[in-house]
């Protein structure tokens, strides 16, 4: 590694630690929120430096789109009084001291364990590379997620679905009132929304051979939905069509897995000739579902009809 690259990495690492410290100790929750959003962006740079561009892409899309809007909206719910956390800055007491010591020990153990790893550690990359020709795709990350370890991914999509169900169990609240969007915001939405749909499709397609895939595409799509919702709040209940779209990706994935069993194979065993197609089908269905899931998480459990914020 060159000195310039090392300088960049050290700068990133220092910044990340500094940001975490500040966002945990600031009593003004708005500032903490902004630092959290910035933290997400820098984390995505860190993933790039760690040569995990797929994760970087996911972090960039989720961090700057969905999570950013979500935490700012959460701040609105706290209201003027909740925006300042009186319990901060953290004062030292016995519980916090022992907690801190515990975390320090954990950190030391981790650091030491990582340092004790043999040099040139490759994990399972050799096995993965050997299996790549039968995976149906050329991006090893997609091959791992959608083929080698598709069982994990199937269950992870279920986890995302559960998040929406969890939101629906909470009390419904009135739709947030909003002033008319105004010409500039209107223009922004008009230009960005189609672009986001195109980029989402591009990421989905690129996932087969380059960084990208269902989750990244869905995050961009969801960000488009959030932008639209911010400009013109809409109702997104648990209507049958919404439920159908939310369950669609998981249902398609599971159905393909079961169909392969009926066809004489094992659960989720993609025949290598059709693996590419099947993966694309699963990813396309998952993209739509995950996008709506993320959007539903942002919209929350909103009651139908024009509501007003509590005064």
């Amino acid at each position, binding site marked *: 590694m060159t000195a310039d690259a090392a300088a960049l990495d050290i*700068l990133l690492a220092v910044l990340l630690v500094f940001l975490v410290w500040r966002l945990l100790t600031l009593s003004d929750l708005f500032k903490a929120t902004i630092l959290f959003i910035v933290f997400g*962006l820098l984390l995505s740079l860190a993933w790039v430096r760690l040569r995990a561009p797929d994760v970087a892409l996911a972090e960039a899309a989720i961090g700057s789109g969905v999570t950013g809007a979500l935490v*700012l909206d959460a701040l609105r719910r706290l209201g003027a009084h909740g925006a300042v956390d009186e319990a901060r800055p953290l004062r030292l007491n016995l519980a916090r001291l022992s907690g801190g010591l515990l975390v320090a020990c954990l950190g030391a153990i981790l650091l030491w364990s990582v340092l004790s790893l043999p040099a040139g550690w490759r994990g399972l990359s050799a096995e993965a590379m050997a299996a790549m020709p039968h995976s149906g795709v050329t991006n090893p990350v997609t091959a791992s997620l959608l083929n080698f370890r598709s069982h994990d991914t199937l269950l992870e999509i279920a986890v995302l679905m559960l998040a929406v169900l969890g939101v629906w169990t909470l009390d419904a609240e009135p739709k947030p009132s909003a002033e008319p969007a105004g010409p500039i915001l209107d223009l922004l939405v008009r230009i960005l929304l189609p672009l986001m749909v195109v980029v989402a499709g591009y990421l989905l397609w690129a996932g087969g051979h380059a960084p990208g895939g269902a989750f990244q595409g869905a995050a961009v799509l969801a960000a488009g939905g959030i932008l639209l919702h911010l400009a013109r709040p809409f109702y997104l209940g648990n209507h049958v069509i919404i439920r159908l779209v939310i369950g669609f990706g998981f249902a398609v994935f599971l159905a393909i897995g079961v169909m392969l069993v009926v066809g004489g194979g094992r659960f989720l065993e993609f025949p290598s000739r059709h693996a590419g197609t099947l993966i694309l089908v699963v990813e396309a269905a998952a993209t739509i579902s995950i996008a709506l899931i993320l959007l539903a998480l942002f919209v929350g459990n909103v009651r139908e009809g024009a509501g007003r914020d509590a005064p």
Partner: protein
Amino acid sequence: MTGFMMFMAATVLASVALGLCRVLLGPTRADAMLAAQLLGTGAVAVLLLLSHATARSHLADVALVVALLASVVSVAFVRRLKPVGGHNGGA
């Protein structure tokens, strides 16, 4: 050449990170928002520079996504929060 680009990436990152002091200084929420936006653009520049320096053209996709979604947070801010609030804002 790649060393130069890497150095420039580090410089851009350092300078926009310096701008983050504005988040801590305030005084208004709008100021903090501006600093975050600057960092977003800085991240796009860093990603493009890294993409060239490390010869990984797909990093430009990450930059594209960051640029595409950069406005979502600002829009959420102006639509859901008052720009002058906060406990020391609006002073």
